[in-house]
């Protein structure tokens, strides 16, 4: 009985972890196996699927588009979100501040389907051709709330008296920003921008409604899947996964350095 009481929780935890990671593990493993079909036992290991994937011009174009969108999201969301959050914490009225913060976070809980369709309808209304630009606008919209959220959390512990100290010692507001504010918040901004890039890289719904004939990695994979499972997809997914994991880990490490 005693043994069972100890084993049961451990077994349950293992089951949950297996449930969370098994599909990912399967994809990663099969991106390296020689057999074109998902089958056990594994016959042999190969990097052929990676070579295949990168040789396919469709895939390399999709990868390039995805990177462009990720960079645009990182730069624009990072800059806009940081500036907005910074302005927000300097507001004196707590009620206005709380309302604006909530309002800026709302898009994060609006279903992506709604955002995707709404943007598509809007772009059509103003006569903008579907394409990468539309998708980029969508990506910034989707990642901005997360940037505002992380920046706001960091800035709540920011000691604004150091800015007053700089002014007091003779620095103009722009000099104080350059010498004091920027170096102090830079790690947080970079961390938040990397998060925005990660969100952009695997964004599918909003992209699909707005990107038109262009392909991004998630949209291309979705298209390829409809024609059957090609092990190259496993390879692409594994690459995407590695990039995302790196981005999220880096973002966490950078953000853990507190804004002093």
């Amino acid at each position, binding site marked *: 009985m005693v043994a069972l009481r100890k084993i049961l929780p451990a077994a349950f935890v293992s089951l949950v972890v297996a449930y969370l990671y098994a599909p990912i593990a399967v994809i990663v493993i099969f991106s390296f196996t020689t057999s074109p079909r998902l089958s056990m036992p594994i016959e042999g290991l190969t990097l052929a699927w990676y070579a295949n994937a990168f040789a396919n011009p469709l895939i390399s174009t999709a990868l390039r588009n995805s990177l462009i969108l990720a960079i645009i999201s990182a730069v624009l969301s990072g800059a806009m979100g940081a500036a907005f959050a910074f302005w927000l914490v300097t507001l004196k009225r707590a009620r206005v501040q709380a309302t604006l913060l909530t309002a800026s976070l709302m898009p994060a809980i609006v279903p992506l389907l709604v955002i995707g369709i709404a943007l598509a309808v809007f772009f059509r209304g103003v006569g903008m051709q579907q394409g990468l630009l539309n998708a980029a606008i969508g990506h910034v919209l989707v990642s901005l709330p997360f940037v505002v959220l992380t920046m706001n959390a960091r800035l709540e512990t920011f000691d604004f*008296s150091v800015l007053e100290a700089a002014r007091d010692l003779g*620095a*103009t507001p722009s000099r104080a920003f350059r010498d004091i504010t920027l170096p*102090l918040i830079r790690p947080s901004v970079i961390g938040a921008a990397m998060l925005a890039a990660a969100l952009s890289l695997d964004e599918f719904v909003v992209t699909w409604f707005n990107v038109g004939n262009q392909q991004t990695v998630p949209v291309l994979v979705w298209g390829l899947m409809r024609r059957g499972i090609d092990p190259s997809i496993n390879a692409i997914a594994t690459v995407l996964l590695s990039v995302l994991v790196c981005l999220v880990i880096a973002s966490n490490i950078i953000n853990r350095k507190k804004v*002093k």
Partner: protein
Amino acid sequence: MTAAVEIIGVRKLFGATTALERVDFEVGAGEFVSLLGASGCGKSTLLRIIAGFESPSEGRVRIHGEDVTNLPPERRPTNLVFQRGALFPHMTVRENVGYGLKVKGWERTRINDRVDEMLALVRLEGFGDREPDQLSGGQAQRVALARALASEPQVLLLDEPLSALDLKLRQQMQLELRAIQKRLGATFVFVTHDQTEALVMSDRIAIMNNGRIVQHGTPRDIYRRPKSVFVSNFIGATNLLRGTVASVENGRTFLQTGSGTHAIPATGSPLRVGQLMVLSVRPEAVRLQGEGARVSGLVTEIIYQGNNVRVGTRLDPDTIFWAEGRDDEFDGIAVGDTVALGWAEDAATILEDDGT
């Protein structure tokens, strides 16, 4: 004495609340002035108005004759030492102290010399390459002081810079600050809520309450001759006896209180017979007395403080009268004894009853 800081009719409103009511005040060049008051009395607001971080709703601020009311902080000849130092966390001690000079465009070698001089002044030679988070609280405040003094401000403003330190360190820093101010001959305006700190350090104290300066003067002046019940309560402990003026004769006021009629040296404006006034006498001026005793009552409390003993005596159901003195003065007194107490006539002050 020329005025280093002139505050002329300064008012400050924050929305509907008044932080400062028409303050007029002058700080002389080379003076160490403390603005003393409880939190929310307006002392920090007044300091921030001098520094330029708040602009007054009305009134002017002049520094050495020049009107600075509309100048931003970076263009004022003042520097501020912040409550918690506000050191730049991404710069070394050396870079912190030299920052103001760098902004002014000084040459690197000249900055280095000046920084060394400042670090020596606050006794932190050899700490130049430390990061702010490697400093103790006292060291951080010394760096903040060095940073503020580096560009030789005409007026140094200090916003409760010692309040985060423990008692021993605070007392040591009080003496150091005072010594540095004396050595430089600089003008210091020091904000504090700690009356002992103000008494120890200042040439002059301005006591603030509800956005006004209610009294200013030398520490001795303020302690010995408080002008109101508020001030006598705020600076040190005091015994208060409320009563009506019975008569005024030969420079003495006779105040009829619940515990007898007491003579007090007359000061200030002439009093009418029948006017409600308050007698104030410091506990340390009260002595056990056989003959010539003024009040008597039952001892209710004896508090041993090491160097001193405080004895509380109930005069009437509402009044506990405190006497304070050396341990041996109260030998043989126990709770429940009846004692007679007295004080020298000129140790008592007569005050208007301001209800506090």
